[in-house]
Each structure stands twice: as C-alpha cells, then as structure tokens.
C-alpha cells in the first residue's frame, strides 16, 4: 500500500474533555490500509479514551473521524462496528453468563446468518484452539482465557480494522507469544491498532509506534527508535506499568 493511498482510519483534531480534564487534545492520526500500529504511553495518557472516541463509546468534544476517506464522525457505536471495525476493550467485554460457543456464535451473528454463522464459529474454534473450552461459561475462565475468547469473537465477525486495548494483560508468557503470532497472522488481511505496554511485545509485532502522553501524540516513530529515544524514557520514568 503506498503512502499516498487513503488511510483506513484517520482523525483530525480529536479531543475529549471531561469537565476541566483534557483526556485527549488535537489528535491527528492516520493508519494506512493493512498497517499494524502500536500505541504506547504511560497510564492515563489517553490511549483507551482514543479507542472509545473511535468507536463512539465517547462522543469526541472536538474533531472528526474518517473511515476510508468518509466522514464517520456522526455515526453511532453500532454503525461504526458495521463498517467493519472490531474492538477488544481494555477490560474484557464478553458475555459472562454464556458459553464460549455462544459468545462466538453471537459474534458470528453480527455479520452472518444461519449456516454461514455456524461455519465462521467452527472456523474460529479451530483457528484459536478453543475446542477444550467451547462449553465452558465465560465467568469460569481465567482472565487470559477470556481475553483470548474475546480475540476469537472479534476474528469471527471478520472486521477490516481491529483495535486491541492491552490484549496480553493477564496472559502467561506462552499466551503472550501465541497472541503475538496471532496478531501477525490477522495482519495479513486486516489493519490493526494495538495498545500495549510491554516494549518487547511491541517490538515483536509492530514497525511503527505512536506514543501518547498527557492526551497528545508525543512521538510517532519506529519501534527501534522508540527504544533508544531518551525523551520517551523520561515520560515513562517511574510510570512504566507492570504487565502482570
């Protein structure tokens, strides 16, 4: 994809204010078709707020959002989803009272009917190796497993752009490796934005990284440059979130 092509998503001057608190301010962001971008930044930098604005869980206080060149600033959350934008929220958002299969089936039903939905569901179970827990209720799974199921749900609904807010939080080392592998695989045909704290993980998955700091875009450079940028070390100093 050439640099001049229309970005899959872009924002102009997005801001979000809570009373006097400026959680986001003047965000100009572009993501190319097929790109995999990481967002990093200390706690409270505004990363999740940015995702909430993109999916219209929050109504931005200022600015505009474009999807493949179309102004989608006025769309509602479910209409944004229908554009093919899937999101894994920071706190897992799953159907706790339902089984893994039922969770996936609902996700499939969001975009397909009948046999097609059944097939998409079975394909996700296969791809994500969920066979052993398909009949478990979500509230009986570990945090890492729930995140994994949520990823499976997003894949099942076949979006063109996926937003992942800290997908590896609470996962074991082995699960993190699996997730990195999966993200690469998804990225073959899907654009992604991934919020992540773990720099090793970021380096493993992304070329370009956007750094948020105090509600603004602080830097946008390659993962390697970020690692050696003293300014970025400073904003993280003492604030680096531990990945459990």
């Amino acid at each position: 994809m050439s640099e001049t092509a229309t970005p899959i998503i872009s924002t102009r001057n997005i801001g979000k204010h809570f009373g006097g608190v400026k959680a986001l301010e003047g965000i100009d962001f572009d993501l190319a078709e097929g790109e995999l971008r990481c967002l990093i930044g200390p706690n409270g930098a505004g990363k999740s707020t940015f995702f909430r604005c993109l999916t219209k869980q929050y109504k931005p206080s200022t600015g505009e959002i474009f999807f493949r060149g179309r102004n989608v600033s006025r769309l509602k959350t479910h209409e944004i989803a229908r554009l093919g934008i899937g999101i894994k929220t920071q706190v897992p958002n799953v159907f706790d009272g339902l089984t893994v299969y039922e969770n996936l089936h609902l996700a499939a039903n969001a975009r397909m009917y009948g046999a097609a939905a059944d097939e998409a569901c079975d394909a996700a179970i296969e791809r994500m190796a969920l066979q052993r827990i398909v009949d478990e209720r979500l509230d009986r799974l570990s945090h890492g497993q729930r995140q994994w199921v949520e990823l499976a749900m997003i894949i099942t609904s076949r979006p063109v752009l996926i937003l992942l807010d800290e997908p590896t939080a609470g996962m074991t080392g082995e699960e993190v490796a699996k997730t990195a592998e999966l993200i690469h695989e998804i990225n073959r045909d899907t654009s992604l934005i991934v919020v992540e704290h773990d720099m090793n993980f970021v380096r493993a998955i992304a070329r370009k990284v956007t750094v948020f700091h105090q509600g603004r875009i602080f830097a946008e450079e390659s993962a390697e440059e970020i690692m050696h940028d003293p300014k970025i070390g400073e904003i993280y100093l003492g604030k680096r979130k531990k990945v459990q």
Partner: protein
Amino acid sequence: MNRSLTIQLGLVAIVGGLLVLILPSYLGIDRVLQLTLNFAFSVLALSLAFLWGYAGVFSFGQAAFFGVGAYAYAAAAINFGDSTWAVPIAILTPVLLSVLLGYFMFYARLTSIYVAVITLVVTLIIYKFMGQTAKPSYMIGNASLGGYNGIPAIPPLNVPGRIDLWAGPVEMFRIAGGVLLAVYIGLRLLLVSRLGRVLVGMRENELRMELMGFDTRLLKVVAFAISAAIAGLGGVLFANWNAFIDPHVFNLAFAAQPIIWVIIGGLGTLTGPILGTVVLSTLSLELGTQKMLDVNLVLGAIFTIFVLLVPQGIIPSIRAFLENRRAGAANKPGVAHE
C-alpha cells in the same frame, strides 16, 4: 433447532394439549374457572418473563399492556358483536402503545431505573384516566368505558366468522390453556432463534452487542413490542374470563403482580413464572376464603421470606440443586489453548 428441543416441545404440546382437553371433565366448574384465570395470568407472567428474564429489560408496565388488550378486546367485541377482529385489535393496540413508549424510552437511552419508573407511571396514568371515564361521553363506538365500574357483558370469543359458535367456560378453559401452551412453545422457539440469542446477548452485555454492530435501541423496542403482544393476548383471555373488565388491572397492586410471579418462579426461566403465577394466585384465593388474617399481609410476608430464602426463585434453585448432585465436585475449566 436441535432434536432434544423438538422432542421436548412436542411432548409439552401433546401432554399439555391432552390435559387441557380432558381436565374439564374431571374438574368442577369452580376449578375450571380458577385455572382459566391462572392461564390468563400466566400469559401475562410470560410476557415479563421474556422481557425481563431474557432481553434484560425490566418493565413495570406489563399489566398496562394486559389491561389495554382487555379493554381493546371489550370495545371491539361490543362494537362488532363478533370476536374475529377483536382479537387482533386487542393484540395490536398494546403493541402500538409499546412501540411508541419504547421508542421514546430506548432511543433516548434511558437507564433501566427510569424505564421502570416510566412504565409504572404510564400504567398509573391509564388507571386514573380509565377511572374517570364514567361519563356517557366516554364511548368507543357503542362501548361505554364505564369508569371504575368497568365494562360488563363483553361478548365471548367465537369461532372466527361464526358468532353462533361462542365459547362457554369449558371452551374458554381449553382456549386459555391452548394459548398458554402456544405462547410458551412460541417463546422457547423464539429463544433459540437468532433474534432470541441476540436478545440474551443484549441482556448479558449491551456494550459488547453495540461494539459488534447490533442496534440495542431497536432490539429493546422489538422485545418490548413482543412482550406487549403477549400481555395483550393475556388480556383477551382475562376479559373473556368473566366477561368483564375494569381499571383495577392498571392499579399499583395489580401492576406489581407479574413482577412477583416472575421473581418467585425464577428470572431467566419460563416455567418458573407460570408456576409462580399458579401458586400465588391459588394461595391468595385460598387465603381470601378465611377471615382471620389479611390476605395482602400474609402474601407480603410470604414474598419477603421467600425472596430472602430463595432469592433465585423456585425453578433456578431446583435446577442448581439437581446440577450439583449430578456434577458432584465442580469440574475445573480447562486451558484455553496449548
């Protein structure tokens, strides 16, 4: 639809259908009438069991849809002298009301507590309004609304197009029983359909549904309308039960009834609320025959103690008990992926 559900619902239809057919031959007329009333109330309970228990939308206004259905039936049947069109009118009128009300509540994204309050207030407004319709100017065609005195002599259900073939008490018992079975089976089928699963998803996590592209405002209006249709159907049965309807179906005490039936029977089940309805209606009838204790006081005490002891309701508690016995020790969930 899977096989075991087909078999199960087939059995319900056959056994239930047979019972409804033969029971009147073995029961006295008192019991027949009492059960007919239980059936009508059970249909009302199912309307809330579905809306609250499965779509996750709590409404204090199911009695209003029930009452509007009964009044609409009465007015239409009196005017036409025939129930053929009165029945669809009695279902459509509450549906229209629910769509209108639902649109304003759910598209405004009111929180559930406001929805509860507004549905209650609307019910009470209808109560006040119907109460002051005693003046002869309040007529719907030939039907006088009659204020707190209500509408007497409502024409009974007849075979569509044949007013000479109308339902007596025994036929009404069978019709009401048949309607209850049909609503129960219809809801079971709805719940395994795409719409049904989507509504349960909304109950479980509204935000996730939105994030996947479902318009939960619309889904709520649809669920509300379905529940209003069911409640209206219950109202038809009720208006037929003793050919009479008055505004008490809109008062606070009656509006609270379906909620109590559903809580006692068990939220998230369909059989529970039916059981709750039959048990509580029977209890209040039996208590009504003695003079020692105030009925409402005793029922209130029973309800309070029950909710404290069996907060999940009858059917979910029985299910949990049976499952625990079957499972023995709780089986640990496996690993997600290896």
